[in-house]
């Protein structure tokens, strides 16, 4: 955890020059263009993962450099990781539920999973 004795180090942290931030900004614009371009190409099932990957990359860059999480105390980094962990946990468990549920308990036309004759999940 944070060594609360570290008195003034928060101020003398290595400071990036203004150009560094503009560089990050250009990288982010490039990623936005990439995600826009990737959306035009129809990659079938791969579009969502690619889009999410680019968005996560941009998010990580904003967090690490714009929000100075790179050299920050471990507690701050831990909070972000923990909340993202709980977000993925919530989404994955709810989706797992709706996809393996008794087929007719899901809305009528969302049965995209294999069903054997008497409505049993395979």
């Amino acid at each position: 955890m944070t060594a609360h004795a570290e008195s003034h180090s928060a101020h003398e942290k290595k400071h990036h020059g203004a150009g560094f931030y503009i560089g990050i900004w250009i990288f982010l614009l490039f990623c936005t263009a990439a995600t826009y371009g990737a959306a035009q190409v129809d990659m079938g099932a791969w579009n969502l993962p690619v889009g999410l990957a680019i968005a996560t990359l941009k998010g990580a860059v904003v967090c690490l450099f714009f929000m100075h999480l790179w050299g920050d105390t471990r507690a701050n980094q831990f909070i972000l990781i923990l909340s993202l962990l709980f977000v993925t946990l919530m989404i994955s468990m709810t989706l797992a539920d709706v996809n393996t549920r008794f087929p007719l308990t899901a809305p009528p036309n969302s049965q995209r999973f294999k069903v054997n004759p008497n409505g049993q999940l395979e």
Partner: protein
Amino acid sequence: MSLAVVPEAAPHEAAQEPDYIRAKSGVLSWLLTVDHKRIALLYLGTVTITFFLGGLFALALRTELLVPDHGIMDAMTYNRMFTLHGVTMVFFFMIPAIPGVFGNFFLPIMIGAHDVAFPRLNLLSYYLYLAAVILGLWGMIHGGTDTGWTFYTPYSTTTTTAVLPILAAAFINGFSSILTGVNFIVTIHTLRADGLHWMRLPLFLWSIYGTAVIQVLATPVIGITLALAGVEHFLGTGIFDPAHGGDPILFQHLFWFYSHPAVYIMVLPAFGVASELVGAFTRKPLVGYKMIALSTFGIAFVGFLAWGHHLFTSGQSAVDAGVFGFVSMLIGIFTSIKIFNWVASMYKASIYMTSPFLYTLGFFFLTVFGGMSGVALATISLDVHWQDTYFVIAHFHFIMAGGVVLMFVGGLHYWFPKMFGKLYNEGWAMVAAVLVILGFIGTFTPQFLLGNEGMPRRYYSYPPHFQFLHVTSTIFAYILGMGLLLALINLIIGLINGPRAGNNPWGAPQYEWDTPSPPPEHNFSATPVINRDPYEYRGQEIIENAN
């Protein structure tokens, strides 16, 4: 502690500095205070009012259930009563009670700080909580709602009763809970006195820290869920309405994603108070300090994974039921670690029999039975029979009413001399404690059998063969009510003309007993240096209680 070196028997030396009650006077000094101790007393006042209000609703329910059919109220009033009992107790008493009152008062003192990290944010949290209570009361006056404290859609979005004020009250209460959590975590991280490294943190603060983590990360989900239900009720946007493709089970997932960790927001502080009481009255260092601290975090994190055991019979898939059932079993382990270590701490101890410790014994008994019934409920095939019956009501009342309320009242008795500088009448407190514990056991044990018989919960009228168990439960409910009232009256009498209490009436080893009682406004004249463990008992002379 530097102060500890001073010979214990000289409480008068700190008397020149006025204590926090007499430091300032006037209503404004109380309403706009940023002193964490005064905010704690404001919380104490509001929390006691909401507790007895919730208790009145409960007694009304129990009286109605004396007879199988129409008793003293009609069905709609009964439904409103059990909803208001649920909402008042869950949102306005149990979530803010122990962190709000004891967390606020003793967190800075225990870590040797002058105040919490963000004092004004602390006051803002109290006023958000007060606004939520007032909005809730306003909703109650306007007839309240009859959806139950779980607000399940599509009933909560199509009911004609005034559900919006209660939803808004719970929403605002969430923010107060989040801000308190943020405040406590930052305080524990940054304001610890020198020498107080993590392994010397009192166990009460470990449980407050675990609770704060859950408060910060789980409460926003209920905020957004209730907002969605409110907008759905108001505008009909169809997010939970099956006619437009929505899914009511999604509401249940989002609701329980908060509400299961919320039950650990309620019970973890109670475990913390229990650890303090056992540490104080067994006159020896606590057994398994590390294990108890670690199991606090175990409960806090694994608590986030087990929300699905509330949906076993709601059409959830068997795969999910398996995963949630397995994780729910793990939580049972952490609670059993705590209980085993507490009981082991009583081995070869020198137990000092006082009313707070009697509450702790009651707490052990009720939490063991409550916890065991919880594990039985987590066994999925048994839960199919027990879900939504009185067995579930008995389970969570054993832990909530038995655990949280007993530890709130026990903690209040234990810290009463420190908070108010007065001593209450020990004899009457013992009588009240016995009444309260007997009342709990008598009220909720019959409900286990009712659950087995298959009596569903939230039933206004029931088949006649359940009546005998309901009558016994109601009789003991009145005994419980009288016991709690007696305890309150005893404390008030102690407050008015109780004898003055010294710094350490119980001879307890923890840090907060080294400050004068009641402590001065900034807690310590000199910033303390902590050089001992919290439960290291140093042969302090037991100052016999005045009465």
